[in-house]
């Protein structure tokens, strides 16, 4: 019995990180109706930022997270002005293709530079043991950081002028513009923020698991499931969605072979889309 609780708690810890990964995706979707298919590649970028920072300077991987955020934000701004800005408001297929192309470019360049071999960020924190089960320090730390960052994002979006501008543009771009909000700058900032969040989640994941240049795809797929569970375009919901996904994984694991988990996950994804086409916690968009 305690095994099931341990499994669920483990699921929640990892789920919080999935939630953070999905937050960037859902923010960009919510604000500008763009599904960012380069999301996975950006997550990988975050992983490599931490890897190289710890390798070269020997600092704690957790100090690499702010750097990951800055690199992500700048990368996001560049991507926005080079590619996304041209396709906003055009048919959705355009932005899918634009961001998918970007995904291929980033992965191609990264493969050329770093190959597809596995990398590992060595980090050890004391864990907490309950009975025979141990929750590793890195998982607990990652979950705490994920929740703190989600909280900061919430405060930013609700209590600062740029944050409010982002929400205004998300709910009605024309009305926002009439009220004097520079919408293009706001959109680029939102995109930068979304990409920065993806980078941070990549940075956190790198402290938990080994990764390769191609690891992003798995987290991108999970982000889609989380986004749908949490409500399309709802960053706060993404954290809940991530934790919900973690609980589902934790609950299912003791009773099914682990190789079946993805089938359950994506079954849930399809079922949710049928029952709640805008996601379970959707409320920001009409």
């Amino acid at each position, binding site marked *: 019995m305690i095994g099931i609780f341990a*499994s669920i708690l483990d*699921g929640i810890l990892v789920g919080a990180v999935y939630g953070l990964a999905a937050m960037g995706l859902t923010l960009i979707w919510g604000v500008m109706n763009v599904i960012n298919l380069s999301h996975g590649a950006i997550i990988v970028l975050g992983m490599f930022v931490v890897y190289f920072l710890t390798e070269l300077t020997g600092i704690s991987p957790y100090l690499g997270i702010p750097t990951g955020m800055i690199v992500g934000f700048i990368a996001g701004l560049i991507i926005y002005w080079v590619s996304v800005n041209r396709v906003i408001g055009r048919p959705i297929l355009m932005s899918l293709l634009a961001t998918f192309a970007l995904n291929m470019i980033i992965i191609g360049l990264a493969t050329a530079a770093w190959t597809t071999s596995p990398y590992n960020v060595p980090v*050890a924190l004391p864990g907490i*043991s309950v009975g025979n089960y*141990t929750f590793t320090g*890195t998982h607990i730390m990652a979950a705490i950081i994920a929740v703190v960052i989600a909280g900061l994002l919430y405060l930013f979006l609700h209590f600062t002028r740029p944050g409010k501008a982002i929400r205004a543009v998300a709910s009605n771009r024309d009305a926002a513009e009439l009220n004097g909000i520079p919408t293009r700058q706001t959109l680029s900032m939102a995109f930068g923020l979304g990409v920065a969040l993806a980078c941070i989640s990549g940075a956190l994941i790198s402290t938990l698991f080994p990764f390769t240049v191609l*690891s992003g795809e798995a987290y991108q797929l999970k982000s889609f499931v989380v986004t749908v569970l949490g409500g399309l375009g709802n960053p706060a919901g993404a954290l809940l969605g991530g934790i919900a996904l973690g609980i589902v994984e934790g609950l299912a694991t003791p009773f099914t072979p*682990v*190789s079946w988990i993805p089938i359950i996950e994506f079954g849930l994804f399809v079922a949710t889309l049928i029952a709640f086409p805008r996601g379970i916690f959707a409320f920001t968009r009409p």
Partner: protein
Amino acid sequence: MKTTAALLLGAAMALAAVPAFAEDTITIGFTASQTGKLNNDSTSQLRGFELWRDDVNAKGGIKVGDKSYKVKFVSYDDESQNTRVQQLYTRLITQDKAQFLFSPYSSGLVATAAIISEQYGKIMMSIGGAEEKTYKLGNKYLFQTYTGASKYLAGALDVLKKKNPKAKIAFVYEDDPFSKAVAQATRELAKQDGFTVALEESYSSSTTDFGPIINKVISSGADALLGGGHYADGSTLARQLHDQKAKLKWVTLLVAPDSPNFAKLGDAAVGVSVPSQWEPQVTYKPDFGPTPAEFTKEFKAKFNIEPGYHAAGGYGGALILQHAIEKAGSIDPQKVAAELNKTDVTTLFGPCKFSTDPKSHGLQIAHTMVLAQWQMKDGKLVKEVIWPDNAKTSDIMY
């Protein structure tokens, strides 16, 4: 103008002269996983090949009758992917005109490469392809140097029989052809030996989070864990088993712990054992090529790292091909294949003999394995041979 023309003519003649020189080389083609998840093990194998080539060429080449052929390699990076192996082996045969082939690393890739090599009737030395199924398809030109997958964990079961005959075993393994073949064969043996199978879980090759599986292992109350797959997943599994303090008394993982890089895990490596095709401590007396000690010394001098079994397998497999070509006194594939069928030779890698039964042609039937374990000795991690008794360098740490 005239001088330019003369220079061009000279260059053309020089180029034309190359093929005449190239006749005295034997071209061997293969792919190695220089990138991707098999890169660690495959690179060791590649180093084994390269050391052999340099040794042979330094001695004047392979002796065929009264001629000597220098060895030339043509190789590509298969990125640890089946599709690349399929494309590249076709290219090696049709465009690069490879006369003989070495296999890529790992059972899955060998199975793919073997389809191509058989189609074109090319001899391929299989190194690093332990799964037996590939050799039971009626192949004629495929020769296996490794002991088959079903025998990998026999040593671990033997140790458990001695130390804890009532052990509850958890089988946790990668879902690739090789690891599955090993686990399934071992599970049956374990049941016959009266062990309890407490848990059986397979995981995909790209798994990085073993947390859920480890919780299940703990819940199952298992004392021993047998399984793993290759380097990337196996080393991660060992690390996370240690991080989550799974109180297992015995852990044997395939492939990963054999790599010297496994020592980077530090405390997580202690006590972990690995079935091994070869260890530097073995004392085979070869009738062809260098002794294990000579090979180990040379390898260390060149690559600055202790050779694991993948490296020795690479060198050993290549030696067996060389032996057959020299015995045949010809580079004609039919004659060399006939010689390989007759092979009964001991190299630094151990004894080698191929099955000539048409149903399992090319299957290795003489080579044997050892079980090695990482132990802490005077504050240093060392890999010791603990099984079988006549080869052991240290006692079992249980």
